[in-house]
């Protein structure tokens, strides 16, 4: 058995200062197998990937590649022996073309012959149903297309094992289907695939086998198609964590936030302009905005938080115009915001939780005539930590020392405890462990029940369907209609995410339509 496996990991141990990231991990991937690697953040998946890709060296244990014990010296060595990796955050140069980007990772002899390389790119991409024009600049490509560049790059290097780190988190449901077709074809041709994901349903659809990790150890393995989603989730989180929240129906009240013809031309060449956004949020409802990242979500968040000011009359909360107000004034008007970036926007990495409490909660009597009331701030920080079960050494721990889930609970707690009238949360559970995600969802529902309006911007469709009363999608800076969740099918939502929705005055552009169909 061991001799036929493409990759076998035996007793991999990797110790980091203060954390045993991998603790005796065994993993076997057969040729042509699509193998899922599951686990919450901090379970040790990334470390294991880095071991396979040669980025870090294990302290103990052996990597057996095609039956031979191998010490992977580094990523270049890994590529040479046939391991390809597609990172969650793509490593592409936006100012170069597809072919140039691919050439960069090839030996000079192959990279020089541009025409031959372009022909190969065309051949490989059409063969696997991933249409790509080698001469286009990466900056003009959609996220899905960029991912194809990464995959094609691995294929051209003739990878025998392809590692994909959460590849579907950036795709629309339709794009996911295309990706899966490609992966199945690759698998049929004998290429092994190691597929890292949080999305259990996808794993059931795609993967032949799954290995589940928790706390650096393998806690189980299964054939995903033979067990239920809940069974897999249970292996991931252990026995004592609730798996999901049940949202109760809401009682929406009066219109709280109204957005009228909000347009923002972007100054960033790679940003997205907001195009005449219209929406209304009522008190006591959760409204979801789906969409693939980079379609204006960040711009919308900035426009609502006040980091980017708008023209007068575009935005009003409770009837009061806040278009021109800055973040501080909007916070005073009852707007709370949870940005996508936890470290480096929602919280200052090098500062303690106490200081990070003061960051946005200063309006809650924590400052008196310019002097910081330290005792009050500490009290407030301790209150957040306790109410939202933030696991940290103390309130003096730095934000950077917290895990993603705990920091996010802290940030949500900090905002929620300010009793906002409007809560805008962007990707609140992205990269967060299941336990924290449940706590965050509960906090949002609690806010809604207290009469706040909640705007949830997310890529996680399960999350949106679970929590939202109404939802729509954002594509290229345009917002689809917001309709009750129960009336919106996933197919329809997928089309909206690709830009196929009616918009007064503007027809969907041709390229976007073909996108969705492709």
């Amino acid at each position, binding site marked *: 058995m061991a001799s036929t496996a493409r990759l076998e990991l035996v*007793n991999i141990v990797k110790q980091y200062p203060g954390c045993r990231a991998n603790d005796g991990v065994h993993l076997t991937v057969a040729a042509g197998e699509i193998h899922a690697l599951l686990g919450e953040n901090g379970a040790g998946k990334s470390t294991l990937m880095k071991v396979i890709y040669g980025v870090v060296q294990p302290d*103990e244990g052996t990597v057996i590649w095609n039956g031979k014990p191998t010490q992977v010296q580094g990523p270049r060595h890994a590529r040479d022996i046939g391991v390809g990796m597609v990172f969650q955050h793509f490593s592409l140069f936006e100012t170069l073309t597809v072919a140039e980007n691919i050439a960069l990772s090839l030996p000079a002899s192959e990279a020089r012959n541009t025409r031959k390389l372009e022909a190969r790119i065309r051949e490989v991409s059409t063969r696997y149903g991933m249409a790509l024009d080698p001469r286009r600049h990466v900056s003009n490509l959609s996220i899905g297309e960029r991912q194809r560049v990464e995959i094609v790059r691995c294929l051209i290097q003739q990878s025998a094992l392809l590692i994909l780190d959460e590849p579907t988190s950036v795709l629309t449901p339709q794009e996911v289907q295309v990706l899966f077709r490609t992966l199945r074809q690759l698998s049929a041709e004998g290429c092994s695939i190691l597929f890292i994901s949080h999305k259990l349903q996808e794993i059931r659809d795609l993967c032949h086998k799954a290995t589940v990790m928790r706390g650096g150890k393998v806690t189980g393995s299964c054939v995903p198609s033979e067990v239920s989603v809940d069974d897999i989730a249970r292996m991931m989180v252990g026995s004592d964590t609730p798996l999901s929240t049940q949202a109760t129906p809401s009682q929406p009240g009066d219109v709280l936030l109204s957005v009228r013809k909000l347009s923002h031309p972007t100054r960033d060449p790679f940003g997205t302009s907001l195009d005449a956004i219209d929406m209304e949020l009522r008190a006591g409802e959760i409204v979801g905005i789906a969409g693939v990242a980079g379609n204006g979500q960040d711009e919308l968040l900035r426009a609502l*938080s006040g980091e980017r000011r708008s023209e007068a009359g575009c935005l009003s909360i409770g009837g009061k115009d806040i278009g021109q107000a800055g973040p*501080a004034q909007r916070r005073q008007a009852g707007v709370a915001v949870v940005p996508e970036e936890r470290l480096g*926007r929602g*919280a*200052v990495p090098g*500062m303690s939780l106490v200081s990070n409490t003061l960051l946005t909660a200063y309006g809650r009597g924590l*400052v008196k005539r310019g002097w*910081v009331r330290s005792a009050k701030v500490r009290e407030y920080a301790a209150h957040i930590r306790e109410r939202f079960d933030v696991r940290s050494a103390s309130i003096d721990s730095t934000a950077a020392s917290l895990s993603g889930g705990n920091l996010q609970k802290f940030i949500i707690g900090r905002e929620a405890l300010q009793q906002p009238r409007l809560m805008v949360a962007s990707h609140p559970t992205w990269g967060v462990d299941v336990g924290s995600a449940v706590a965050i969802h509960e906090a949002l529902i609690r806010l809604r029940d207290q009469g706040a309006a909640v705007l949830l911007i997310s890529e996680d469709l399960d999350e949106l369907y679970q929590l939202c009363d109404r939802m729509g999608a954002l594509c290229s800076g345009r917002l689809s209609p917001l309709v009750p969740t129960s009336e919106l099918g996933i197919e329809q939502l997928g089309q909206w995410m690709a830009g196929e929705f009616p918009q007064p005055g503007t027809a969907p552009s041709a390229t976007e339509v073909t996108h969705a169909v492709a």
Partner: protein
Amino acid sequence: MLSLERRAVDSRLMQWGSPVLALLLTILTGLVLFWALGKDPLAALGFFFLVPLSDTHGWAELGLKMAPLLLCAAGLTVCYRTRIWNIGAEGQFVMGALWASVAALKLSDATGFWVLPVVLGAGIIAGALWAWLAAVLKTRFHCNEILTTIMLNYIALNLLLYAVHGPLRDPMGFGFPQSEMFTASALLPQLIDGTRLHIGLLFALFAAVAVGVLFTRTFIGFQLNVLGQDGRAAAFAGFGERRLIWLAFLIAGGLAGLAGASEVSGPIRQLIPQVSPGYGYTAIIVVFLGRMQAVGIILASALLALTFMGGEMLQIAMNMPKAITGLFQGLLLFYLLTCDAFIHYRLRLRRPLPSAAIGQEA
């Protein structure tokens, strides 16, 4: 094989151990240097560090040189904590000295307690405005403040030279480029009789403590800190970036201006071209050596004041070039920046990599 490895947590010990280590290495290098110059290293070191402080007069002189250094450093601390790399304390100092002199000379006939505050105020405003130029260039045109402040230093120096060669030159001064002597009402009171030490040192100590309080107790200090550590978090929280940058520059410029004013109305008593031996630049070292903390910059300013005195002493006693001062200051900064790496990293001894196949013996 030695390699640097990132620490999981920054070392608190090295935070303060680094300046001490840097000082030791500087002294060690100094010994080698003196030896190479053919001087008795220990004697030279004694002249540099000990002899200047052998009597009251020496201590008073130390305080005298500390005052401008500490004033400039206190202001720079505000900037550097906000990650604004204002290198312009020298120019702000010079402008402070220049306009304080203008005020003092214009008021040479006046007497009364109000003259001195006006003179110092003129220096503060001049220094602050000079810094504000760089602030506007940064916030309005996104000019890098390192470049603008350095260039403004040269402009300030040339304005000073123009003033002492032209409009402010003492007509009775035999053509020397210097102003008239100030009258008594424009002079800072002495702190210890019989020495040149003046109350400028008290301003400096007060400024250092005030800056410490600013950052530990006040909300505006917190905002400056946030802006320094994480501009996007500051924008997210709604802390006005422009307002904070201006404030940091104005405080730094005002304090450097006060330092310049205190020099001309303190020990020098007139405006001369060599009003600063580079206090504004040396103050940069003070801030980093003092870890941007009140107590730290007070101690560091004393140490660097000593390098000025030690350099002069060596020049007199052992006939060495005056450049020794700059050399020691440079060494100190160099070693400090090097040692600071150990706050975030630690040395690890590693066995040579390849052959040892991992896990095979297990």
